[in-house]
């Protein structure tokens, strides 16, 4: 009787809770120890997940994107030290790979080399995610560009993009058609990035984190390949040509339907001057061209050809 009455009135409840019933004690202990543990887990988790370390890998078909991805995957896994054969991709994949401990990262920039905690860091290599996209012409817009758009505009820390790798086959760039293909893809990608940074500049005072672009000049091991500097020149010249013809070209059919989509020009607005990647630095897009080779010399250490790209990735982290 007394227990029933106890739950009906306020004082009854207070009395009930304060008398030394084992249940109340158990609950009290649970709360007393559980809350700190719970809070710790919540905050620890939040702190442990890095802000974002997603990298997007774009580029025309046959440039070596999937090969690069599998190479990094093989490198970061302890078991296999052999990267697999690859074919044309049809779907994009997200892989989580780790940076070799020898590669310096931007967050460690100001640390002394004698810092003992550096050794700790080398024991737990930094992990980042790399998204490999198909480069086939038909799948670019649906998977490459749209992926870039969603990743660059996303507010979620988990899916935000940290850097963009655009891979080109330097041996194939000698061919006019390949160069045109690669350059037009790069043009579209840069246009998306420019639109993003311009739009952000207008709406909010706080600028979004910039997305640096690395043009990974792959297949440097081949005899016919162009050096990175020449790749840069060729791409700049070709993008300039694209830019010029874009301003003169025909309108799309969708223009008539009243969907006002402003056609942007890459770089300066009037497209008068010659296009260089330097122009993009005004809008906060930094473009680097770095050479490398996914399938390097067999005598050298496994995967040493991609070392400089990894260093670039390290500088973004």
């Amino acid at each position: 009787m007394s227990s029933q009455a106890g739950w009906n009135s306020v004082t009854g409840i207070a009395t009930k809770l304060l008398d030394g019933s084992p249940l109340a004690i158990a609950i009290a202990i649970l709360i007393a120890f559980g809350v700190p543990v719970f809070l710790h887990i919540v905050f620890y988790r939040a702190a442990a997940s890095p802000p974002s370390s997603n990298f997007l890998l774009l580029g025309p078909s046959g440039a070596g994107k999937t090969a690069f991805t599998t190479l990094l995957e093989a490198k970061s896994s302890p078991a296999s030290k052999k990267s697999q054969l690859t074919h044309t991709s049809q779907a994009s994949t997200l892989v989580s790979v780790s940076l070799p401990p020898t590669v310096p990262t931007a967050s460690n920039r100001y640390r002394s080399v004698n810092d003992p905690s550096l050794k700790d860091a080398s024991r737990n290599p930094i992990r980042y995610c790399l998204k490999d996209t198909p480069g086939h012409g038909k799948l670019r817009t649906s998977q490459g560009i749209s992926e870039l758009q969603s990743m660059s505009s996303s507010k979620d820390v988990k899916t935000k993009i940290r850097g963009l790798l655009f891979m080109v086959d330097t041996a194939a760039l000698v061919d006019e058609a390949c160069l045109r293909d690669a350059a037009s893809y790069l043009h579209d990608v840069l246009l998306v990035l420019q639109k993003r940074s311009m739009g952000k500049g207008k709406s909010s005072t706080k600028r979004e984190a910039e997305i640096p672009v690395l043009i990974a000049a792959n297949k440097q091991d081949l005899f016919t390949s162009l050096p990175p500097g020449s790749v840069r020149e060729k791409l700049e010249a070709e993008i300039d040509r694209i830019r010029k013809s874009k301003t003169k070209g025909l309108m799309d059919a969708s223009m008539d339907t009243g969907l006002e989509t402003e056609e942007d020009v890459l770089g300066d607005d009037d497209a008068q001057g010659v296009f260089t990647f330097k122009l993009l630095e005004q809008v906060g897009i930094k473009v680097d061209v770095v050479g490398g080779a996914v399938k390097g010399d067999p005598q050298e250490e496994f995967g040493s050809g991609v070392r400089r790209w990894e260093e670039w990735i390290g500088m973004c982290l």
Partner: protein
Amino acid sequence: MLEAFEILTTSGVVLWSKTYAPVGSHVINSLINDVFIEEKVVPQGASAGVSPIFKKEKYTLKWKRVKEFNLIFVAVYQSLLHLGWIDRLLENISTIFIDLYKDQLKGNRTRITAYRFDPYFEQQVRELEDNTGSVAETYPAETGEKKDPLVLSDNGGPPPPPVPGLMKAQPQAALAGATSDEGTPLATPDTSRSSTPVGHILAGKAGPGGRLSRRAKKLQNVSSNASSGDETSRKGKAPKGSAKKGRKWDASGYADEDDGEILDYSAPADDAEPAAPAVEAISQDDWGRRTGKGQFVLKELGDEVHDILDNADAEKSKGNASSGIVGSGFNAVGGFFRNIVGGKTLTEADLQKPLKAMEDHLLKKNVAREAAVRLCEGVERELVGKKTANFQSVDTALHIAMEASLRKMLTPTSSLDLLREINAVTAPTTKQHAPRPYVMSIVGVNGVGKSTNLSKICFFLLQNKYKVLIAACDTFRSGAVEQLRVHARNLKELSVRDGAGDIELYEKGYGKDAANVAKDAVDYAAAHKFDVVLIDTAGRRHNDQRLMSSLEKFAKFANPDKIFMVGEALVGTDSVMQARNFNAAFGTGRNLDGFIISKCDTVGDMVGTLVSMVHATGIPIVFLGVGQHYGDLRGLSVPWAVSLLMK
């Protein structure tokens, strides 16, 4: 013989591969490009049970897709050979591979796992290769049958001459090994294993009872020989035991009551003498070209593999069987519920109705029936076996899939930038190519607007300050040249007013051969430093062989950089045949380069012709004609077209 076998993911990573002869990776790349991405090639014979075929260079490729794991199994072999067992191989390998590596494939470490799949594959290939000759319905039954004739023929023939010599060659072994199975190191297992004749004789064990005595006699003679290979005999025992187990499923797929029937040849061997297993082992060496060592492994594997295949078969039959009233009723309720909540695995039955509705919708949008049906089939293939997302109904899933497939189809592989191409030809950046005029020609059925679109393109080029020559190669219809002359005069007027490019008309009157006129026009343009030559041709009915055949000569003479076909948006079902016939008319090695769809302003949202034409040929749409003025020429915007189609 099989050239290569690869297991790859849709993301392009080869998980496991086996190559017997070097096959360039471009072969499989072109399979992916042409079949999976561009869908240019319609896979032949994609019916149930038979894998589709793709031919590239001298190779034939057969493949199987497993959607659940995003895997593609590809077998490459020489087109000259007819390998009936490839279908079976693909089927079995996919089952085995997925069963073995289910966990790895589901996890995120799919790509870095080392797949030690070689022995399984070898086993399958051997087994299936042995069974070739006749394509039987159930190959398990075949296994048993096929072995018998082989054995019989071996026994029936006279003993091959080298046998006595061999027997003489091993007297020590006979002495040493006659008493014990263990034998001695003196034995010559190599000879006994590799020499075919011995094996042939010893193969007698499989014959019916009548032959047993003869074989037994022979065995007594040769028993020393047989047991001399001590390791062979020991190994032979293990295979024999497992062979019996393996046969279990042979009988009827998953019943093991019939064991005895299949094993009729091994049972007497058991009774006869302990040496019998050794005999079998040796004989099988010969058939299967296996080494003594390998056999042990292979037989074990054979069991495992057969178990896997058995289970898969049993599951399949179970799945078919469980369609009782209670089961179906429960499924119906569950299916209805899951249709709302999502997470439903789509089956053909689920999709039938929505697909029909989708097909009707496409037909209403003036998509040709053939194209609509094939689009729906493609979407169905893609969706069957997939799970719908959370809170996604079947209709929504279908809608999304159809939109994606339309978008993929309409998106060109490489976007055409006409101005840049013209620049590349007329003012090449490299010294290797001499500047020459860029030649475009326009073909099409009568009255679709060839001349109109030609003058629209001309206007666009004039705006970009090019020097354009129009060649009037319609030497057939009266008034065609005059019509162009009017256009040329108007355009000249306009360009002078705007201070734009320069235009001239090249005409040679009526009745001349169009191909020759075109050739002359190109020469004239080259001599007078024109940038672009636009060639107008006579309209022709696409199913008129006589008129269409002249196009081949035309393409050869004028050798245009681009051949565009004008099709009107108003045309319905005929668009497919138009596109196909015109595409094929220019001879081998030359195709259309693009379509211009005229009169788009007259059809509203019924722009199905775009889909039909691209679908029939895989050639992109370059321009759309959207009005009566010179400026009413537009590029194709894929999102615009897709949204109109799906509205």
